[in-house]
Structures are given as structure tokens and as C-alpha cells.
């Protein structure tokens, strides 16, 4: 007797498990049992496992009987004429859903040609072997799996046309590509997804050659003429949000140009864009430090009754201003109320991003790179027919990564661009490379896609033919404008007096533990000291008790809080962080006594 488990719960036994399982499957196909039921006879433990719970991943497969798929030409015909739908196929038992349990006992053919008597199922399409974004990689079956993964990961970061109602939206951190295009080389998935409604790249002319070493290490060389014509331009949108909060005691924030009496008043110059309502006007070009929404808040702590009279002098400034390195144009101003009934102001900032050195681009094959130089159009190599590439890609990116699909797309793109049609690059089912080559030959090109090229600067012919064609390139959301950062002097932290951290706070670049070690290893003792001078301070120390003394600025004299004024006090130079740790020792009730000694 074989145990029967439904959703891992024992329900009974059967005598003939194989027959039992077959019956469940055939009844499911007949429609007598729900489609979501899956069953398997596990011989190892002598159990029949039935799964009916929700949350299982299932996938559709074509049922195969005696080596013949149940899906026939007749079904396909009916589907084309819209006479039947997917659910009809399910009802007829032509297609069924199989889960991970039942999958153990099925044999699935990948292609119809692979079918034998033993097969129980057939994949609907070979494209199902890859995921959604991966299936957008053309000719993916020519690639290393790793590259396929990386290519699809890169596509997710591409700037495109993500929604068509973007104008009415206030999403955080949005990039929009200016002239998005449909890829010339596409896959079946592109039409399934309506990719033409939200494309995320552009078809560019790519030459695979080196350019004075500027495209070493995955860098790409870009044509300035193409940029001037609008290639890969995008707009960056960011909303700035402020709310009139209500506090206890009937106090409330106020959106208005702050009064000069307000604590923390910036400067008149910073508020210059604000209109009478305290909000910036649309189309104002703003820089860092400029106030977008003027706001003042009531005092944080109400100490005396006087402050209840709400004079402006007790209020705090709490405007929204642009942080370090931010800039843009005010695109859209929205005044509304939130769910608590508080006044809510949202200002959308826009900033045009023209491709520049350091911006990241990628093809759809995991071949990402950053712009290393923007070359004037006059210096770009050109072909005999006068074609100039938009992007020059380094040939060294190809051999080690084995992204053959990258090359085939280049070839296919050329065919598509010249013949004015889209090329199908669906994984496993795309157009054959040989056909593409043949078509290219028919149009008067070399069948391998190579062309004679000339040096743009000197006009000399290159000794080798250059592989050039059309490709779909994506601009990725990582742009230097959002990341560039440097500092010489700048803000410090209140507690440690060390430089702040991070680009937004104009922070310093940390000289860490291991970097410190390099100074020590070189014996560059004094240089190391100087590098760490960011938080150095002069501290008066009482020689009597060894504790830190106090400097009285009015008397211009130091005194010791323990030993008083009649004691020897010397100034020493230490890092503020060390002074801080001495204070922490005191908090630990540890007496950190400094014994001073003459330097000489």
C-alpha cells in the first residue's frame, strides 16, 4: 500500500500508485479536476504526492502523446483566427501546468525535432528557458551564460521611456531618454512586451576598432557630432517635497518667504526665486544653496510662555534648498493637501543631461563601458561611403568575454538598417547568420560587415578593414553628473571635528587604515601626521593633575578645573579625536593623566 499525501498531509493509501497518478492526470486533462492540481509518484519513499496549495511556481507545457504533440496545426489555425483562446487549449488538455513536484516525473523536449516516444511534454517555445529581460538579448544562444545574465542586468539600469504619463507624475529619481528608438534587431519578446511603447535605447553605428588607446579597458569613444544631434540625451527629474506639519499646541509650519528675524535665516540672495507664496516659480534655473520652498517652523522646545505669542523671532528656518552639487530648472509646481489635511508642496526639478566623459553605456550583451573621450566629428574615422560611427568600441572586449551575439547583432543591425526591416534575433529561433551575411552581400557590402575606413584626422586609409554596423545601445542611469566629487577643505562633523562623509555633505575622502599603513611602511612619519591634521587642536593641559585645562578667553589665561589657577599649564597639539577619547575615559570613571615631557 502506498501512502497518499495531499499538501504534505497524510490522507490515505492506494494499492496501485502508478494507475492512481495516471488517473488523476488524465482527469485533470479532461477538466474533471482543477488545472492547478499536480501529482507525482515518488518511488524512493513509496508515496503519492499531491499538491493543490497556492503559491507554487507552475509552468505551461504542451502535452505529448506517443511522441506527437497534442497541439496541432489545426489549433494554431484556430488561434490565428481568434476562434479559440489559451484557456480553451488548457480545457482541451493540449497544454497543462506542471509544478516542481510533477516535473520530476516528466520528460520535456526542448524543440519539436527532439521528440521521441519517451517524451511526455514539449516546451511551448525555446524562449521559455530564459527570463523576461534575458529574452530581450538578441542572439542570446550564441553567448556565455554569464554574459547573458550581465546583459539583462544592465538592461534594467537603462534610461528609457518608462511611462507615457511622466508629465503628470512626481516619481523620485527619474531619467527619461529624449529620442528613444525601437531596436532594429529585436526578439519575439519585444513585440510581446509592446517594447515600442516603452523603448530604452537607440540604434547607433558602432565600429569595432581602437582609437588612439582611448577605448582601453572597456571605455568607449563617442562622436561629438552625434551628441550634438541629440544622441543619448536624457532628462533627470527629481521632486522636492515639503509639508506644513502640525505640532502640539496648535503650532504649525508656515510655507512663506521666511522673515529676517527667523533663526537660521540664510541670505536674501538664497530666497531670490521665491514668489509671495514662498514657493519658487516654474522655469527658474537653480543652483546649489538656492531655496526651492521657503518654510519656517515653530521652536522645537517651548521654554517660556513668551514663546507662545508666536513672534517670528522664535521661529526656525526649515526651507528646502538644493544640496551640494545639485542644479536644474524648476519644471512643475504642485500644491495640494495630504491625507492628514496638511498643505503639501511638491516641486519637480528638471536637468538636461548631455552625454559627457564618464557616462555609462552598454549594448545588450553585457558589454558595458564609460565614455573616455568625445571626439569632434571631423576626427572620427569614416568609411568609403562616408559613414561615421557614433560609437567606437574596443576589439579587446570581445575575445575573453566571448560575446558572439554582440558581433551578430552588429551584422544584423547593418542588414536591418540597409534593407529597412527589423531583424529577428530571438534566442534559438533568430535569423541565421549565414542568411544575414548573404543579404549584406546582395546589398553591395562585404559579407563579413567589414569596410575600408579612413583616419578622420589625417585622411589616411587604415591598413585593415574595420567591422562596422548598427547596434542598439543603452544609456545607463549612472552618470558622472550625479557622482563627481572632490574636496580640499569643507564641512566637519560637530562631535569629532573630522571631515563629513559622503558627496551630499561635501565630505572628505577617507584615508583609511590600509592607506595609513602605506605611510608607515615608507617611514613617512611627518607626512602621515600632516595627513591626519584635519582635526588637530591645541589643548591646554595642567601639569599638576594631567587633566585638560580650560582656556578663559576674557582673561587670556588657562586654568585647571581641579588645581585652580596657580598651576603650570602647557599647550599641547593632539588630534581632537584623542581629546574626545580622554573625555570618554573620564565618563568611564577612568583617570587619563597626561604626563608632559619637553620635546627636546
Amino acid at each position, binding site marked *: 500500500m502506498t501512502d497518499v499525501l495531499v499538501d504534505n498531509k497524510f490522507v490515505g493509501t492506494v494499492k496501485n500508485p502508478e494507475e492512481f497518478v495516471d488517473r488523476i492526470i488524465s482527469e485533470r486533462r479532461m477538466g474533471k479536476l482543477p488545472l492547478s492540481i499536480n501529482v507525482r509518484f515518488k518511488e524512493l519513499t513509496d508515496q503519492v504526492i499531491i499538491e493543490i496549495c497556492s503559491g507554487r511556481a507552475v509552468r505551461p507545457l504542451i502535452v505529448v502523446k506517443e511522441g506527437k504533440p497534442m497541439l496541432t496545426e489545426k489549433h494554431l489555425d484556430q488561434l490565428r483566427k481568434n476562434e479559440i483562446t489559451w484557456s480553451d487549449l488548457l480545457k482541451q488538455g493540449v497544454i497543462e501546468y506542471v509544478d516542481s513536484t510533477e516535473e520530476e516525473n516528466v520528460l520535456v523536449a526542448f524543440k519539436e525535432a527532439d521528440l521521441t516516444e519517451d517524451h511526455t511534454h514539449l516546451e511551448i517555445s525555446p524562449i521559455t528557458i530564459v527570463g523576461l529581460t534575458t529574452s530581450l538579448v538578441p542572439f542570446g544562444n550564441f553567448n556565455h551564460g554569464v554574459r547573458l545574465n550581465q546583459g539583462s542586468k544592465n538592461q534594467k539600469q537603462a534610461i528609457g521611456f518608462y511611462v507615457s504619463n511622466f508629465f503628470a507624475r512626481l516619481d523620485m529619481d527619474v531619467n527619461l531618454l529624449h529620442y528613444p528608438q525601437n531596436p532594429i534587431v529585436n526578439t519575439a519578446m519585444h513585440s510581446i512586451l509592446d517594447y515600442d511603447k516603452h523603448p530604452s535605447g537607440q540604434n547607433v553605428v558602432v565600429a569595432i576598432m581602437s582609437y588612439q588607446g582611448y577605448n582601453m579597458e572597456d571605455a568607449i569613444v563617442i562622436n561629438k557630432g552625434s551628441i550634438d544631434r541629440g544622441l543619448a540625451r536624457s532628462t533627470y527629474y527629481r521632486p522636492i517635497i515639503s509639508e506644513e506639519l502640525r505640532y502640539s499646541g496648535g503650532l504649525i509650519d508656515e510655507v512663506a518667504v521666511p522673515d529676517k528675524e527667523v533663526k537660521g535665516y540664510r541670505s536674501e540672495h538664497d530666497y531670490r526665486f521665491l514668489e509671495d507664496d514662498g514657493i519658487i516659480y516654474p522655469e527658474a534655473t537653480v543652483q546649489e544653496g538656492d531655496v526651492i520652498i521657503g518654510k519656517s517652523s515653530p521652536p522645537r522646545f517651548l521654554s517660556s510662555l513668551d514663546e507662545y505669542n508666536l513672534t517670528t523671532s522664535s521661529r526656525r528656518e526649515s526651507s528646502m534648498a538644493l544640496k551640494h552639487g545639485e542644479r536644474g530648472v524648476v519644471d512643475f509646481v504642485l500644491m495640494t493637501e495630504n491625507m492628514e489635511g496638511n498643505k503639501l508642496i511638491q516641486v519637480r526639478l528638471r536637468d538636461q543631461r548631455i552625454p559627457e566623459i564618464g557616462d555609462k553605456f552598454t549594448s545588450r550583451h553585457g558589454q558595458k563601458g564609460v565614455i573616455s573621450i568625445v571626439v569632434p566629428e571631423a576626427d572620427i574615422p569614416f568609411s568609403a561611403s562616408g559613414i561615421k560611427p557614433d560609437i567606437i568600441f574596443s576589439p579587446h572586449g570581445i575575445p575573453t568575454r566571448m560575446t558572439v551575439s554582440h558581433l551578430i547583432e552588429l551584422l544584423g543591425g547593418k542588414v536591418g538598417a540597409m534593407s529597412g526591416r527589423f531583424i529577428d534575433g530571438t534566442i534559438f529561433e533568430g535569423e541565421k547568420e549565414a542568411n544575414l551575411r548573404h543579404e549584406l552581400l546582395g546589398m553591395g557590402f562585404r559579407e563579413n560587415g567589414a569596410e575600408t575606413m579612413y583616419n578622420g584626422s589625417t585622411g589616411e586609409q587604415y591598413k585593415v578593414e574595420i567591422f562596422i554596423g548598427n547596434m542598439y545601445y543603452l544609456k545607463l542611469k549612472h552618470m558622472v553628473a550625479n557622482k563627481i566629487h572632490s574636496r580640499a577643505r569643507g564641512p566637519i562633523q560637530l562631535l569629532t571635528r573630522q571631515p563629513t562623509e559622503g558627496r551630499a555633505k561635501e565630505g572628505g575622502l577617507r584615508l583609511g587604515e590600509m592607506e*595609513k*599603513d602605506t605611510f*608607515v*611602511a*615608507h*617611514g*613617512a*612619519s*611627518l607626512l*602621515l*601626521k600632516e595627513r*591626519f*591634521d584635519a*582635526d*588637530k587642536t591645541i589643548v591646554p593641559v595642567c601639569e599638576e593633575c594631567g587633566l585638560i585645562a580650560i582656556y578663559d578667553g576674557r582673561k587670556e589665561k588657562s586654568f585647571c578645573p581641579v588645581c585652580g589657577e596657580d598651576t603650570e599649564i602647557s599647550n599641547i*597639539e*593632539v*588630534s581632537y*579625536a*584623542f581629546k574626545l*577619547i580622554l573625555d570618554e*575615559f573620564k565618563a*568611564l*570613571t*577612568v*583617570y587619563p593623566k597626561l*604626563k608632559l615631557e619637553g620635546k*627636546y
Partner: protein
Amino acid sequence: MTTTKLFNEYKELLPEKVLDDIKKYLPDKCTDAKAKIIFETVYGEYKRSIANPGESVGLISAESIGEPGTQMTLNTFHFAGVAEMNVTTGLPRLIEILDGRKTIKTKMMEVYLKKSHSSGKEVKKIAELLKETTLKEFLKEISINIMNMQMTIELDENKMKSVGLTTNKITKTLSKLVKGFKFKEDKKDPVIIVTPSSKDEALNTIYKLKETIKHVYISGIKGITQVLPVKRGDEHVIVTAGTNLKDLFKHDFVDTERTISNDLYEMESMFGIEVARQIIINEVFKVLDAQGINIDVRHIMLVSDAMTMSGSVLGINRYGIVKEKPSVLARASFETPITHIINASLVGEVDKLNSVIENVMMNQAIPVGTGLPGLITKVK
């Protein structure tokens, strides 16, 4: 030969090893002038190789070992020889050595044999002799006779022969080690008859004995679980899993001068701290060498010196050499700072600020490199 004069001249200036090397490589037909140039060049090179005063040798060693260490794969198991002997190598072993762990994952010995035994004929036999064996390995069958309260142990003669044991010897060891039973040797067959000495609950005790007796130690060296004869050059060496130098050295065929164990503490207790130092160097070098990492031995020697200079092996961790640091701040900067600060305050410890890390903390010039020299002249 006048070169002898040169050799004498440089005797004080160059170390013996370098002088020997010169002697070895100096061409026979070398003129005095040329030899002089050679000596001068060698002396110059030697002088240049000496670390300068104020050089941060420790930090350079640490980085030189640490940096390639990041490239090591975490878990690399290596099969030594034909028999499957699992040996800890790679990063786990490196950490094990440098931490000065008392119990290591795979203890091993390399047993060298005295000239008269290392030719190879007896190696297998000797190897078998070393291996710890229990009664289980000589067993053919154990059966209990309920009627006369007896247990008969049938032994495998071939197995016994290979280790040079007889039924008689086994009977003697058993009666010495297992109390409460009488062991009697059968006259003809290799069979031992066991009868309990007391009559109460006799069946129960003998039934329990049936299982426990299998694990009774019979011969070999305790702790050695595997043996593997290996050919090294002309002689045969026995590699063992498990160590026990003390018992091993009781056998007179063992070359006690060359036999080593990879257990630092065992080597230290047998031979002293100098040997432990050398074992650390050898073991670390072996690990790095197996990974294809090329580090100058002197870096490892420095680490080994630091670990052993106190006279006993100390690991590089907060219980070992970090604990020995004279500076409170230096100790506090490495793990559990509060403990160190509190304990220092209890005894009023004074930090002389003599080493690097305290001075970095205080933003003072570190006493290394350019920060080391000071003025001798007194300033009034």
C-alpha cells in the same frame, strides 16, 4: 692562493652563508683583482639588503603576508599521496598556525627512519606497527554461548602476523586492560575464550562486553589513525595522521633527529621553543608555497620570531602577542578596548607612547622612519 686572504678580510663583514656561496661560485681561474671586485659587489649588495634603522619591518611583513593572503581561496583541501588523507591547507591552515591554536584540525607526523630501516623493504611492516589498532581489526567473529556463559573471540591469523602479534599476546593485553573477566587462549585455533569472573548478572555483562571489547587498544601508537609510507628521494618516510611523538620515539628504528610533527605545541614540548619557531616557518611556507604564493621567508621568520620570542608559542590574537604589547592604547585599539582601559586604570598603567598606533591616535609623529631620530643636543 691569495683569495684566502680576501676571505679572511671579509670574515667579519659578511655572514658565513654568503662566504660559503662565494667560495662555491668563485671561478677557479679568478685573478685577485677580479675576486676583489666580486667581494666588494657582494658586500655592497649585502649592506643594501640590511633593513635600515627605523624601517617598519613588522608592518611590511604583515602587509606582505596579508595581501597575497586575500587572494587565497578559502577552502582548499588537498589530497596528499595515493591514499585519501585529508589535509587542512590554504587559509584555514594559515589561520590555525598564526592563531597558535592548541588543537589543530589535522595532526600529522613525518616519521623518518634510521638508515638501517629506511631502505624500503620493511617500511610497510613498520608503518603497520605504528598504527593504532583495536581488537576490531583482528576479529573474525565474536559469539556468545549462553549455556556456559562464555564468549569466544575468533581472531584473524594473517592480520596478526602482519603486525607480529600472536593469540597469546592479545590474550595477555586483554586480560591486562579488561577487568572482571577471565581470558583463556585456545590450544589449537586462534581463539580466545572469555568468561566473567563473577556470577551475578553474568549474561548481561558479557553481552555489554561484546561491543566494548571491539574498541580495546591492542597495539601500535595511540593517536595514529592512518599511516602512509612515502618515498622521499632515496629513503622511505612514513606520513601519519594523528601525532604522538613521545610514544613514537620509544621505537628504536625512528630517526628522532628528523622526525617532525605539525603540531606546534607538541614540537615545543619535545624539542623546545627554537624548534617551534622553525616549525611555524616551515608550515606557513608550505601553505603559501602550495598556493603558488611567493613570499620572502624573512617575513615569515619575523612573524615566527614575534610568536615565539616570549619563550612559549603565542598566537597572533588578543590572548597572544597583542596581550603582550606594553602600550595600553595599542592593546585597546585591537578588539575589546573597554576591558583594556578598565584593567589599565585599576593598576595605574603608564603608556610611554613608544610605538606606532598610539602616536597615530594622538596625531603625533610616529617613531618610525623619519620620525625616529631626535636631537641629541640639549636645548636650554
